[in-house]
């Protein structure tokens, strides 16, 4: 019995001890993401982008003369863990701002905490419109679902001149459902026709049944607004089922793994993205070079967004010349024409980024720039 209560006490003490306050010589920034569990790859990539930004800034002398330190918490992909880690970041670690999450579901769970405590939160890639509606301390540096859905609908209708679309969406992913909905709206408004609409669940590996159905509907292209984790396999299986029409998608496609998994089947497919690696701007080229040097792999869109979110924050700290919540908030809100890797970012009234999207084509295993679509 005694040993047990001691063990219990030890646990309690450990928790208490684990709350350490950032020193005066440091600026504490919080990050929360899914770094273990089924969606671990998203959280890890984003964190790496954030880390790179911090290391670069620190090398250049930090911000306001102080070094930046990151506190990164894993939420295992669970919304309740996301909320709890933000509570801890804000209340126990006293971070001045929070970066995260990728998934809108977890951003939605955590945003009220940041809002209530008046600590700015910048989501790198939560695209659901609801996220920033949680309050005036919640920002994002990515575009939102309606915009991206629109981009691809217009591209397909105007540039590719296709009239018959099929959709294959991920019913478990809010992002995918959102994109599909807005794509459908715009495409039909333009005069196109949706001939088939099928669903899958992220984590699935077999999409043949859905593809067989879509094939029989005779679409001119298939819109697959999912993550690269599934799209590579979908492209493969589409070819195996004798589907030769192109696939279209969104920024969730952007990863080197897409081409390695999808292989030749990915050729001739299109997706919208924040940026293109062909962009000659030094921000982009340096980012790619440094990321590869630091982490040994090519960055994906999530890493780029994480990198931008962190840099938008640091710029704002610099402009605000303060780390106090309200001042910092105002400075972030005033972000204008920020030269991000993922585009030129201006935050609008709704605290969403307005930036242009690019459409890329998969060609010879590379993502080739096709056109830029402005909001």
């Amino acid at each position, binding site marked *: 019995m005694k040993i047990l209560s001691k063990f219990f006490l030890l646990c309690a003490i450990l928790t208490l001890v684990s709350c350490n306050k950032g020193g005066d010589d440091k600026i504490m920034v919080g990050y929360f993401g899914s770094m*273990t569990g089924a969606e671990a*790859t998203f959280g890890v990539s984003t964190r790496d982008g954030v880390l790179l930004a911090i290391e670069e800034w620190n090398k250049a002398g930090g911000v306001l003369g102080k070094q930046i330190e990151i506190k990164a918490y894993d939420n295992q992909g669970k919304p309740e863990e996301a909320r709890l880690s933000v509570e801890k970041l804000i209340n126990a670690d006293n971070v001045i701002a929070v970066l995260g999450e990728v998934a809108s579901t977890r951003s939605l769970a955590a945003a009220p905490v940041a809002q209530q405590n008046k600590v700015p939160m910048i989501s790198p890639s939560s695209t659901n419109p609801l996220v920033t509606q949680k309050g005036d301390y919640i920002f994002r540096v990515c575009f939102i679902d309606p915009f991206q859905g629109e981009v691809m609908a217009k591209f397909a209708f105007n540039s590719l001149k296709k009239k018959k679309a099929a959709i294959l969406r991920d*019913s478990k992913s809010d992002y995918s459902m959102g994109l599909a909905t807005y794509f459908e709206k715009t495409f039909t408004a333009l005069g196109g026709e949706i001939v088939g609409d099928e669903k899958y669940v992220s984590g699935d590996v*077999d999409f043949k*049944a859905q593809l067989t159905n879509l094939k*029989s509907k005779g679409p001119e292209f298939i819109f697959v607004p999912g993550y690269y984790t599934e799209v*590579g396999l979908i492209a493969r299986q589409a070819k*195996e*089922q004798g589907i030769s029409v192109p696939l279209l998608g969104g920024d969730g496609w952007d990863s080197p793994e897409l081409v390695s998994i999808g*292989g030749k089947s990915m050729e001739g497919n299109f997706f919208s993205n924040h940026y293109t690696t062909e962009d000659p701007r030094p921000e982009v080229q340096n980012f790619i070079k440094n990321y590869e040097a630091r982490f040994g792999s090519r960055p994906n869109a999530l890493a780029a967004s994480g990198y931008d979110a962190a840099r938008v924050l640091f710029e704002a700290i610099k402009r605000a010349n303060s780390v106090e919540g309200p001042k910092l908030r105002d400075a972030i809100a005033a972000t204008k024409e920020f030269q991000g890797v993922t585009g030129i970012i201006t935050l609008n009234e709704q605290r969403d980024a307005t930036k242009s999207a690019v459409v890329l084509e998969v060609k010879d295993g590379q993502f080739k720039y096709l056109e830029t679509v402005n909001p």
Partner: protein
Amino acid sequence: MNEFIQHTINGLALGSIYALVALGYTMVFGVLQLINFAHGDIFMVGSFVGLYFIRWFMPNVEPSLLTTIIVILVAMVGSATVGVIIEKFAYRPLRKAPRINILITAIGVSLLLEYGGQLIFGASPQFFPDILPRKQIDLGGAIYLDSNQVTIFLVSFVLMLVLQFLVFKTQFGRAMRAISHSLETANLIGINVNKVILITFIIGSSLAGAAGVLYGVAYPKIDPLLGLLPGLKAFIAAVLGGIGNVTGAVIGAILLGLSETYVAGYISSTYRDALAFLILILVLLLRPAGLLGTKKIEKV
């Protein structure tokens, strides 16, 4: 009609993947009466062993049958090693413990392999190289068959026959069946229970390893959590066919693959997993012995 044929082909292919995993599952269950939750994760380990072997030792190899066989053998050894470690350190100390304790241990081992896998292999999905030459076969009427589908189907069928032989025609099989009947009695009549169980684990785990590589060939995207769902599905398949029954596992797996594909094709893929669980519930409630479970003698 063409669509139906295509769905059927796809369902058979999916079912034969489940069958590969279910065979090992049912072997271990047959002997230990243990739902080896970690089986799906041993299967995952097989995939990764195969992947790293290819990366390190034959990075630029041309797809060929020989390559595939070599990779499969290596993965089998890798998985069997993990299986042996698990049996020796996690399951053996609990041989006489209540079944619930063993089940919980199995869940723990499964979580350990999944999250340990994320630490070791990284969480991101990785590409499994094409090692098996493949061909698209156009059956006419817009129906396609992939050579991989045929290969996997044949492999699972052959393995089923091999296991069937092993269980019913060999000395070892007799010992297995004796243990399955009663561990104590088997002990009393001089069967080295630990040895037989260990060998069963080696066979079951190496089957999982082989399945892992074939899975990588069929769905070339692998990550440390890939074993979770196929593991559960394989269990469902094994229950459907009559758990502990080798033929039953394959039939159950094929039926599950077909029904999942039909549901995804004709109703909605969102309910695909729900269907699998519904099958599990219905079988356990209405016919707990499974489709082939009545003949006690066939139990492994």
